[in-house]
């Protein structure tokens, strides 16, 4: 297997190099194995299947398929599955459940009114606060996070989330402008669509599913625009994207600023 000398940091189609577990991805003691890589003598070896990224001397493998692994700062959408004495357990479709302590919700909750605030089966948008091997801690304290009320939630593959968000949120913004629906994308592959009418929501859902089905296509934005026109929506290409300072790989979910419900 050829050893790459240097590879552009995971951006652009040309720079994409897929690596397979056990493959030597860099040779030399100056390289530092990061996520999805380990050291074997002088070699840095891939431990996971994914796209190789060499940033200075830091070697990582970014997964392209498989289950969702939470990372700190991710926005996730999940369901309350248990209420403990000091918080809630949230199922977000990962290996472990996440824990939302009472102290991490926006207002003071009495022990005996936890069920009234968040009940079993209710769905919330939360931020990943800490990732431990035993489970993850989440928070709901910031703006844009909270209980989901109305609208619909669709499930997509977590690996397609960056395509739904688009570069710096351009794709989400385009869909929002065309349909008037608010879209919240959880990095765990759950998408919450909420609009004024059910027709708008269904149209938005179709667009999101279109993006997922065509996520490997080149010129995805143009294809989505065309698809929007077919649906009878007027699509405006994103003129200049408001800098959200997110790149596609670690993109934050883009949220419609909502008025606080509490």
């Amino acid at each position, binding site marked *: 297997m050829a050893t790459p000398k240097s590879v552009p940091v995971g951006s652009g189609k040309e720079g*994409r190099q897929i690596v*397979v*577990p*056990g493959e030597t991805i860099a040779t030399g003691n100056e390289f530092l194995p990061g996520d999805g890589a380990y050291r074997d003598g002088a070699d840095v*070896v891939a*431990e*996971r299947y994914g796209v190789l990224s060499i940033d200075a001397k830091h070697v990582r493998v970014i997964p392209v398929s*498989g289950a969702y692994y939470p990372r700190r700062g991710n926005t996730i959408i999940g369901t309350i599955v248990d209420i403990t004495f000091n918080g809630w357990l949230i199922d977000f479709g990962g*290996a472990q459940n996440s824990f939302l302590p009472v102290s991490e919700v926006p207002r003071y909750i009495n022990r005996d009114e936890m069920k009234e605030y968040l009940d079993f089966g209710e769905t919330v948008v939360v931020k990943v606060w800490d990732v431990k*091997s035993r489970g993850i801690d989440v928070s709901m304290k910031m703006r844009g996070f909270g209980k989901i009320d109305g609208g619909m939630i669709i499930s997509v593959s977590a690996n397609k989330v960056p395509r739904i968000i688009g570069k710096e949120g351009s794709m989400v913004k385009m869909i929002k402008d065309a349909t008037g629906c608010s879209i919240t994308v959880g990095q765990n592959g759950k998408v919450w669509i909420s609009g004024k009418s059910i027709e708008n929501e269904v149209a938005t859902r179709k667009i999101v599913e279109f993006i997922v089905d065509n996520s490997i296509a080149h010129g995805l934005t143009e294809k989505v625009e065309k698809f929007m026109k077919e649906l009878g929506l007027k699509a405006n290409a994103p003129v200049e994207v408001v800098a959200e300072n997110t790149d596609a790989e670690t993109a934050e979910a883009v949220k419609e600023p909502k008025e606080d419900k509490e």
Partner: protein
Amino acid sequence: MVAKGIYTKRDDGRKFTEVRPMKAKVGIVPSADGSATFETGKTKAIAVVRGPRTLHPQHLQNAQTGILRVNYGMMPFSVEDRIRPGPNRRSEEISKVTEWALSSVVDLSGFPNTVVDVFVQIPQADAGTRVAGINAAALALAHAGIPMKEMVSAIGVGKIDKTLVVDLDKYEDSLFHDGEGSTDIPVVMTSRTKEIALLQLDGKISVDEFKQTIEMAKVACDDILKVQMDALKGVANE
């Protein structure tokens, strides 16, 4: 290999060291976290990976590491006579040995109290189903993004009468009874360190011949690894 015995020519015209034509593909089951098929000749295996996910019942959980659970089964129509679906002695054994072979490369220490399920199904069998299943399972695990130290490749080698052969088919494996009969040795080899992750032996063989067959298996496993790598690298570049 100069054949001195009665088995001087293979039924399908292959060389004695030649593997049947192989085909591999990943991502065939959209609902799974990882999936793959692997074919050698008429033998076909499908592997599906789900997880890591919370393991129930709780007493099976390991607080130090996640566990791997393999389920192998042949479909009722996979052979000429219908086989009764459901677990049997043979499928339980193959599930177990597949699990052990894969456990030597899979690292689930980052996911305590969880399980990674691997389901292997054989829709069409022509001998060598456990090795085809392991090849498919390794692909599916990689496709599911499970941390693995390296890949594994598997091949069946053996001896027919006095001839050493690679990748036995159904006729060679179970229908050849003339002369000294046939011996079947499934070998699983890791991709990087070239260690043996599984070795079973059914029949009889001398020590020297055994060493020779292992060398033949090594060569064949390199070919299989190439097919596996191409399958994994191909899908992502589409």
